[in-house]
Every structure is written in structure tokens, then in C-alpha cells.
């Protein structure tokens, strides 16, 4: 391919280091310092992708993060491939492989391009309008729509790369390494402030670093030379940290910023090994200086999207920085002076500029004079009405603008070209400023939104072109002035610089340029990535959308991966013009983080795999693992779910475990239940206030079940609390509720009842609990602690004894969640596994059977005991649960008491807990299934199943459910409609097994 597109003039590209890479499978060469985009352009490749909707051929349009078209898939490896990467930002490295996206079979011949010819059928809101009915068809459409949409492909395997997070603190953070950022950083660091300068590129200096024309001079040096010397100086300042290849993604309140530092993406693969790929910096800065610069705007005219149409300033950068000609025959189209700088650069590099079309009528400046001296033709007061060329621009049609700019006059003249530079002025990058809470103001003379200095959050300023200064002398002088005040500086070296530059004399702006054809016949693109045109915006307005936020979403303007950095302003401008509104009143859409996309890798950092969340294991966990338990996650806990034997299914294991627990002995690791140690002289009074039942009269050594409500009267948590001493209790909570219960109790103690002398300590981890139940449980405990008197008189149900196993203190509670005679051993966690093994050994002769959460659930359901969070959902009162017996009616107050007789909670048609039996005892209901009375439409939903099991001890299916007015419906037949059958059920009592509680003392 023609290497004559590369010129030998610059210092930025190392033409001694050749780098090979592949694009769409084809091997190509570039040089060290190139981006993928500059290397492709040097190989005369403009066409790199297809547009989102119409699959139109699209080329490289910019040279930075605002790129809408040239987004590519990088890498083939299914765990490392990176979709939607901007070719303009990828630094070339040996072995780089990139592919075009959104095209099939290839970027040169794309079947989807048929959409371009169907475009009259695909206006804004096409999907909303077309796929609305019949509503049930959406599922069928969706598959095809999703298939035809989308850009790159996500990796299909886990990411192998390493990512990191780092907290960073500094006095001053400067965002942007252009001339204003560099000056700010230098002044700040020289004052002795700990300063960080961040820039997203691999080098510093912004666009000034390659501005070598002698029209721009600082202290008699060309601006690039002057700046280069300044950069050398700041690199030596010890308290200034420079972070290149780092982009600020978000600017939150209190000067908290997130930035992504790219560490290895520019390296050859062999240099990346074991290195961190990206680091997310979490920065707290005392002060922030925003110097993020400005982005050049395109111009909006028919077919302004062809490959070869590039922003004028990008053409300049490609030639001046990368030494790459973007074409052999370039024309420029502009509404401001910056295209003239491009023309000068091209002219110096020997690239022919055929014509400059300027919509202004009399733009005289040192720049334009220099151009005319060079013999380049300038058409003043003209516009481009159309372009030609499918995969690369071939020619442009030019016509004269009318005086008011609303139409074109005269004859059309065509010019051939292979590249067109466009410049519609500049847009300050105010994203970070507004993210931080700053408000913008509109400057009418050049149509820019700039930071409002009166509505800037404290401890930050914006400087340079991100603050609306576009000319070199303004940029430098205003930056120095602002930073001096912001940092409280004395006199400095930069206050009386001799700055020479060109000043723009005339401004003219037309958001949507007129054409000789009606708008309906042309395609003036606004959002290049999402293929929305000026027509779409006008259609949205005609259809009644007024808010810019609505127009944005309806037309998808500004919703691509580039977030509309290029042409959101034009969309706003067209809306303002069409509706006759001032742009300042219209405002902008909201700028949201991240400024440029972040990888998931950078967001999660090291918090992947087992580091994603804490895993809590009981002290007996290893035994469960050795004995082949299947585990269930309960909050952060790993709990044994069931213990399958000899290839049992879960159902088989649970049936066996449940039977064994009732027939002989079962053992459960209950260590995960929350345990709160409560001490203090007001402990009894405190429990009186937090539980619904009475606690003052609970004797020392006794246990009691308690129900805890929220103030709204709804059941919140439950558990057994034991009185260990006069002023000492131990409360158990549900496994999942432990932390929240502790917080809630602390809240009441600290804020509502500071007069109570009570101390709460969590001891969940310190004590382990094993529950042994079944008719033989007593014999097993006797074997382990022979000295303990287990007679019902001395140790009745709901009581506790202090004891010792060998010399280790333990607490034995006689409490039961299964309805069986059972004991809980509580012991210091480091002895728990040993004691568990002793229980297993002692229980061997009784076939002691370890069981998990599933069997526990089944056994308690046989007894009709609730599980908060399964049978309750925060909408049930104790009365709804048929647990009126637990409400201490004589108590003056407790949390939630008053709510129990609100007009809503005393309604009789509330959903209430009931038991269910299926007519076919073998039929097991699904938890969550709906209950109805009749199948006649409209079907009235009466409630749903909350717990359901097949009880091996009753040899039938049992279930708990919440049903409207359920308390009154005992014996009533209901239907559970399922996808392929209807199950008949009868409402029963909630207690299915041992209604007389005889087994507790068996």
C-alpha cells in the first residue's frame, strides 16, 4: 500500500521502529507512536466500520475519545477480546489484531446495508411504533431485533487480566495535559502543593505541542517549542505526579474522582505478562483544576458521514503529529478559523488543498491571509449541499448560501476530493464540571455552553478551552489569572508573556445547513454512531416531544458509546431553531459518568471470585465438607443444605434425614443463627420493649420464644432468648437477620431509649451451636455429659443449664425447632468440631443423622413453625400469622404495638397464614404458586404458597400459604393453577404433626 501517505517531518513518531499489526485479517505496518487510526490512515484505509442502524460505510472521523465511527473489536482470544474500542485511542503495538464491527460478512460487503435503502421505513421511534402490537408478539420480534442490533462482541470466557484499585490523595488535581493544564500544574507544584496532573494520552501538550506555525509565538518561540521546554521543566518537579494514559471517568461531590489508568494496553503481549492491565484511581483532591479542552464540532449537511470526512483539527493532528496524510486531495469546510490552521499545515507538508468552503462572508485574519498568499481558493459564504462516494468520499457539491443562511442560491459546483475536513466550531468539554454539580451558561456569540463561575462547586475551577477560551493568548492569560486566585499565589513568571496569535474576526453558525433538496430527501447525520439525522429530531418535535431528554431517547441521539460528544450541540441547536427557543433556556441533556467507557475489570478490580464477597463458614464446616454435604448460601454463610448418601437426590436425602430425626436422632449445625449477648440492669425492660410478649417474669435459666416487629406492626425477626442471669440474656436471631437486628436494637438504645442501661454484643462467631433432636437425643447428651441431670423436672423444655464438656464451659438449652425432644449445645467455637464429632460418635448406636437446612425447614413446617423471610415478607402481622397468643396485650408498649390496631392491620380480609393439603396427597405444590377460588375470568388471586414439602412422617404433601381472609376459610377448597394442570387443595390448620406437642417430652 502507498507509503507515500507518510511524511518524514516530525518528532513524535519513531519511524525507525516498525510495528506489524492486523486489521480484518490483513497484515499491515505502522510505527511506534501511532494509534491504530493513524496507522490505518497511513495505509490509506478509511473505511473501518458500519453504522448501527443503516449499516452505512463509516470511516475514521476524529483523533480522540470523541470518535463515533471507528470503534473496533480488539483481539481474538475469547477471554481477552475487547469490544467497542476507539481506533483513535489504541496505541499501536506489535501483534495488535483488530476487526470491524457491526458488519457481515465483511466491512466491504455488508448485507445489513440494505437498511440504508429501507431508511424511509426506519424513522425515529420505528421500533416503538412497529412492534407494539399484538403485544404478545414482542417476544418473537425481540430475538430478531437484538440479533440485528449491537456493536462489538463481549468476551465469552472469564477475563484473565489483572486489575487494581488505588486510593489517591492530593492537594491539587489537574485534569488535562494541554497548555492550560501544564501551566496550572506547574504553578500549583511550585507553590509546594502535592499536585497530580492527569492526561488520557501517552504524551503531554495537547494540541499546542504540534502547533509549529510562526503565527503562534510565546516569548519569540513558536508555541510548540515553548511548551516543550515547559514540559521538560515540570517533569523534574518532585511534588508533581504526572499520570499519562489516564482518563477521569467521574467527578463526584467533595472532589472525589474516579480515573482509569491504562498500564499495559499499549505494550506488546510479551511485555504485559504479570502486569496490572488497568488501575482504577479513587482520588480525593483538596482542589481540582479542570483543563479538559474542547472538541471540534462537525457540520450538519447531507451525506456528511462518508469515509474520508474527518474533523479538520484531526486532519491537522494526523499530518503534524503522526506525519500521516489523510488524503492526496483534501478540501475543507468550515464556519471558523481553525480549518485555516489545518490548511497551513497541509500546505507546508505538500498536500494539495483544493478549496476551503467557509460559510462566513468575510472572515479576515492573519491565518486566512496566509492561506490566500499560498494560492488556496477560499469560497466565502458557501456551503456543501451534498457529497458523493460510497466507501470513500469522491466529490462535494457546493452552492452559495442566501444572506440569511436559510437556503442556497445559484448553481451547484462539484469539486473532486478524497478527503474533506469539516469544522463547525468548538465545544468545551464540560462533562466533568457538570458531573460535579456545576451549572452551565450559554454564550451566544459562539454558541457554547461554558461553566458558570457563579454556579461552580467550591474548591474547583475550569481553565483553558474547557472554560470557553479558544485563542492562545486568552487560554494562557486567563488560566494564569484564575489559578493565581484559586491557589492564592504571589507573582509568577507567566504573567507578562509575549503571546502572538491569530484572532478570529467573524463568526457564523448554522446548525443545519440548507440544501437544494428538501430535508425529506437528504441524510444530514447528527449522531454518527446511532445513525440519527436532523430529520429524526424534527420528526420527534412534530410528534410532540418537547423536552430534550425525551427527544434524545426517542431518536437515540447521543446515546452511543461516544455519548454524543460530537453532535449533541447540533441536536440542541436544531431543536432550539425549530421551536424558536434560545439554546441557553433549552439547556443540555445530563452528563453522566463515565466520561469514556470503563471496563468491568477496572470497576471490580481485585474483588472477583472468592474476593467478591465474604464467605462465612462455621467451625464445623470442614466436617460437613468431609461428609459430602451440599451447601446453601444463607447471606454470606455456607450452610449444609442436605447430606446425600450413595448418590441420593436432594429429595431422597431430605426424606431420609427427616424420618431419622423423628424416629431416632438428628443433628443440625445451627451456629449461623445470630447470637446477641445482652447485659445491663435494664436488660429485662429492654426485651419487654423489643419483643411482643412479656419478659419481666422469665426466670433465670429459662428460655422463651420471641417475635420482633417493626414499628409498622409487621413481623421482622424471631428467635429464642435465654435468661442467663439477673441482668444477662442471650438472644438468638435468624441467620440472615442477625446484623440488621443488632443494628436496629442499637438504634433504639442509642436514640430512643438512652436511659436504659443495656449493652449489646454480637457473639455469633464466638459460640457454635449444634442441635440434637429426636426421641434418642436425651441418651446421646447423657453419654457426652454424664453428670448432667436431664430429668424433665430438673431440665424441662424451654430451660437451660451451664455445663462442662471435659473442662470447657458450655450452655445446654432444651429448645426445639422440630417439635421433637431436643437439646442445643452452645460452646466456644474452637471446640465445636470436636464436640460435634463426639455427638456423632455417641449417637452412632442411635443412627444419629446429620441434616441440613432443607430437612430443618421440612420438620418445622410439619409443626407449622414459621420462617421469617420465607413465610413472612414484611407485610404480615402476628395476627396474620395466627400467632395472636404471642402478643402481650397487657404490655403498655413494645415496638410495633400501636400499629397492630391501625385501621389497615385490623382488616379481616388481610392475607393470613394457613395450612394447605392437596387432594392428591402425592402432589407437591410449588412455593410461590398462586391460589384461586375459581378459574372463571377475571381470576381473583387469593394468595400464594410460602412453604411446601412432602412429609415422610405424615406420608403426604403439606404446605403453608398466605390467603386473603384465610383464618375464616378452614376447610375451603381452592385451586392452584399451574401451567399444565390445576391442583385442588383444602385449607387446613397450620400445624400438621403432633398437635398436642407430646413429642417434646417424649
Amino acid at each position, binding site marked *: 500500500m502507498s507509503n507515500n501517505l507518510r511524511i518524514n517531518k516530525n518528532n513524535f513518531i519513531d519511524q525507525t521502529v516498525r510495528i506489524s499489526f492486523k486489521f480484518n485479517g490483513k497484515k499491515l505496518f505502522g510505527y511506534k507512536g501511532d494509534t491504530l487510526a493513524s496507522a490505518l490512515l497511513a495505509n490509506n484505509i478509511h473505511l473501518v466500520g458500519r453504522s448501527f442502524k443503516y449499516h452505512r460505510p463509516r470511516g475514521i472521523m476524529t483523533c480522540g475519545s470523541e470518535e463515533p465511527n471507528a470503534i473496533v473489536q480488539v483481539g481474538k482470544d475469547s477471554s481477552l477480546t475487547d469490544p467497542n474500542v476507539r481506533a483513535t485511542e489504541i496505541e499501536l503495538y506489535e501483534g495488535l489484531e483488530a476487526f470491524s464491527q457491526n458488519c457481515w460478512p465483511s466491512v466491504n460487503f455488508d448485507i445489513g446495508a440494505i437498511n440504508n435503502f429501507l431508511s424511509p421505513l426506519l424513522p425515529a421511534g420505528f421500533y416503538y411504533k412497529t412492534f407494539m402490537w399484538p403485544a404478545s408478539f414482542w417476544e418473537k420480534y425481540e430475538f430478531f431485533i437484538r440479533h440485528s442490533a449491537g456493536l462489538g462482541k463481549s468476551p465469552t470466557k472469564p477475563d484473565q487480566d489483572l486489575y487494581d484499585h488505588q486510593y489517591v490523595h492530593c492537594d491539587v488535581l489537574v485534569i488535562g495535559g494541554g497548555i492550560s493544564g501544564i501551566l496550572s500544574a506547574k504553578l500549583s507544584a511550585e507553590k509546594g502543593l502535592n499536585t497530580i496532573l492527569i492526561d488520557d494520552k501517552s504524551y503531554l501538550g495537547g494540541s499546542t505541542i504540534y502547533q509549529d506555525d510562526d503565527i503562534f509565538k510565546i516569548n519569540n518561540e513558536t508555541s510548540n517549542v515553548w511548551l516543550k521546554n515547559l514540559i521538560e521543566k515540570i517533569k523534574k518537579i518532585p511534588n508533581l505526579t504526572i499520570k499519562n494514559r489516564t482518563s477521569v471517568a467521574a467527578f463526584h*461531590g467533595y472532589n472525589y474522582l474516579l480515573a482509569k489508568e491504562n498500564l499495559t494496553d499499549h505494550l506488546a503481549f510479551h511485555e504485559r505478562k504479570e502486569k496490572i492491565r488497568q488501575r482504577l484511581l479513587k482520588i480525593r483532591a483538596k482542589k481540582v483544576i479542570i483543563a479538559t479542552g474542547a472538541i471540534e464540532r462537525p457540520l450538519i449537511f447531507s451525506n456528511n458521514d462518508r469515509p474520508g470526512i474527518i474533523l479538520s483539527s484531526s486532519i491537522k493532528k494526523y499530518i503534524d503529529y503522526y506525519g500521516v496524510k489523510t488524503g492526496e486531495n483534501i478540501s475543507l469546510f468550515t464556519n471558523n478559523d481553525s480549518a485555516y490552521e489545518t490548511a497551513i499545515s497541509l500546505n507546508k507538508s505538500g498536500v494539495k488543498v483544493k478549496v476551503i468552503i467557509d460559510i462566513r462572508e468575510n472572515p479576515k485574519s492573519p491565518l486566512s491571509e496566509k492561506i490566500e498568499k499560498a494560492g488556496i481558493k477560499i469560497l466565502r459564504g458557501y456551503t456543501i449541499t451534498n457529497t458523493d462516494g460510497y466507501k470513500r468520499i469522491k466529490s462535494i457539491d457546493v452552492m452559495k448560501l442566501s444572506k440569511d443562511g436559510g437556503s442556497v442560491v445559484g448553481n451547484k459546483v462539484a469539486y473532486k476530493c478524497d478527503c474533506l475536513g469539516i469544522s463547525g466550531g468548538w465545544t468545551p468539554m464540560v462533562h466533568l464540571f457538570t458531573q460535579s454539580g456545576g451549572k452551565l451558561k450559554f454564550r451566544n456569540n459562539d454558541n457554547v455552553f461554558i461553566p458558570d463561575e457563579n454556579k461552580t462547586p467550591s474548591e474547583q475551577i475550569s481553565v483553558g478551552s474547557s472554560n470557553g477560551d479558544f485563542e492562545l493568548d486568552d487560554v494562557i492569560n486567563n488560566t494564569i489569572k484564575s489559578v493565581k486566585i484559586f491557589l492564592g499565589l504571589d507573582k509568577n513568571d507567566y504573567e507578562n508573556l509575549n503571546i502572538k496569535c491569530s484572532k478570529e474576526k467573524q463568526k457564523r453558525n448554522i446548525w443545519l445547513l440548507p440544501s437544494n433538496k428538501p430535508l425529506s430527501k437528504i441524510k444530514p447525520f447528527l449522531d454518527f454512531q446511532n445513525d440519527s439525522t436532523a430529520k429524526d429530531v424534527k420528526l420527534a418535535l412534530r410528534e410532540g416531544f418537547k423536552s430534550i431528554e425525551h427527544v434524545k431517547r426517542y431518536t437515540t441521539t447521543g446515546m452511543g458509546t461516544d455519548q454524543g460528544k460530537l453532535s449533541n450541540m447540533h441536536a440542541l441547536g436544531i431543536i432550539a431553531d425549530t421551536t424558536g427557543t434560545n439554546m441557553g433556556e433549552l439547556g443540555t441533556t445530563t452528563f453522566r459518568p463515565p466520561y469514556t467507557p470503563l471496563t468491568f475489570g477496572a470497576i471490580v478490580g481485585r474483588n472477583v471470585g472468592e474476593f467478591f464477597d465474604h464467605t462465612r463458614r462455621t467451625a464445623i464446616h470442614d466436617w460437613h465438607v468431609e461428609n459430602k454435604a451440599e451447601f446453601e448460601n444463607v447471606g454470606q454463610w455456607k450452610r449444609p443444605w442436605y447430606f446425600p448418601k450413595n448418590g441420593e437426590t436432594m429429595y431422597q436425602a431430605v426424606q431420609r434425614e427427616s424420618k431419622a430425626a423423628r424416629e431416632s436422632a438428628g443433628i443440625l449445625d445451627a451456629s449461623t443463627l445470630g447470637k446477641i449477648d445482652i447485659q445491663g440492669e435494664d436488660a429485662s425492660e429492654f426485651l419487654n420493649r423489643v419483643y411482643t410478649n412479656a419478659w419481666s417474669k422469665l426466670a433465670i435459666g429459662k428460655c422463651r420464644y420471641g417475635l420482633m416487629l417493626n414499628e409498622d406492626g409487621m413481623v421482622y425477626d424471631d428467635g429464642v432468648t435465654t435468661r442467663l442471669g439477673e441482668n444477662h440474656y442471650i438472644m438468638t436471631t435468624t441467620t440472615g437477620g442477625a446484623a440488621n437486628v443488632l443494628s436496629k436494637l442499637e438504634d433504639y438504645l442509642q436514640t430512643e431509649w438512652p436511659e436504659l442501661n443495656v449493652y449489646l454484643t454480637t457473639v455469633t462467631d464466638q459460640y457454635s451451636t449444634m442441635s440434637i433432636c429426636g426421641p434418642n437425643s436425651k441418651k446421646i447428651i447423657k453419654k457426652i455429659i454424664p453428670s448432667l441431670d436431664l430429668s424433665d423436672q430438673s431440665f424441662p423444655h424451654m430451660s437451660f443449664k451451664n455445663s462442662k464438656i471435659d473442662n470447657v464451659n458450655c450452655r445446654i438449652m432444651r429448645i426445639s425447632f422440630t417439635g421433637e425432644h431436643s437439646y442445643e449445645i452452645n460452646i466456644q467455637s474452637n471446640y465445636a468440631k470436636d464436640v460435634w464429632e463426639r455427638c456423632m460418635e455417641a449417637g452412632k448406636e442411635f443412627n444419629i443423622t446429620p441434616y441440613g437446612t432443607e430437612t430443618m425447614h421440612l420438620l418445622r413446617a410439619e409443626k407449622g413453625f414459621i420462617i421469617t423471610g420465607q413465610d413472612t415478607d414484611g407485610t404480615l402481622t402476628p395476627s396474620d400469622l395466627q400467632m395472636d397468643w404471642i402478643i402481650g396485650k397487657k404490655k403498655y*408498649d413494645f415496638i410495633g404495638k400501636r400499629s397492630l390496631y*391501625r385501621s389497615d392491620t385490623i382488616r379481616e380480609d388481610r392475607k393470613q397464614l394457613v395450612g394447605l393439603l392437596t387432594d392428591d396427597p402425592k402432589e407437591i405444590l410449588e412455593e410461590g404458586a398462586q391460589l384461586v377460588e375459581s378459574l372463571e375470568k377475571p381470576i381473583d388471586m387469593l394468595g400464594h404458597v410460602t412453604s411446601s414439602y412432602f412429609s415422610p412422617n405424615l406420608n403426604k404433601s403439606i404446605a403453608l400459604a398466605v390467603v386473603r381472609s384465610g383464618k375464616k376459610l378452614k376447610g375451603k377448597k381452592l385451586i392452584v393453577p399451574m401451567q399444565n394442570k390445576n391442583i385442588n387443595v383444602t385449607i387446613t390448620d397450620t400445624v400438621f404433626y403432633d398437635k398436642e406437642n407430646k413429642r417434646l417430652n417424649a
Partner: protein
Amino acid sequence: MFIINCPYCGERDQTEFSCGGEAHIERPKQPTELSDDQWAEYLFMRKNIKGIQFERWNHIHGCRKWFNVVRDTSNDKIHAVYKMGERPPVK
């Protein structure tokens, strides 16, 4: 992400705290004597102010103490921090 000056620990990142909603809503001493409307006023009604708001915060991943914060909800600026039971700064 703001920084909160815990009255017991000093300045800490917001991630260490949890917000407990509007401050200075005292639990009625005699709930049983309240009408449904009065109880509902305590139970459900909360202000959602754009501007200066008095809030309860808990240093949940720190000292676990509750305290009050005066925050401007429009810009997250914290104007004062004071302990439970202390008088709020002049409104």
C-alpha cells in the same frame, strides 16, 4: 461521595456510614394514646427537602454510633454534625 465528620472518630468516607433518614422524629412516649392519624404521622410521614435537611447517620462500619447531620440535599454540603441528644444548630 461525601466525607462525614463523625463526632466520635473524625473525618471518614461516606462508605463507612449509613443514613437513617430524617432526624428529630421522637418516638411517641405513649403510642397507645394516639389516633391512627397521629400514629401515621410519626410512622410514615417524612420530609424530602431540596435544601437543608436534618438527618440521622450511623457510623456503621466504624464506631457504630448514631449522630445527626445537617446536610444540604441540593449539593451534599454538610453544615453541621452533632451527637444524639444534643440540640440542633439554629435552623
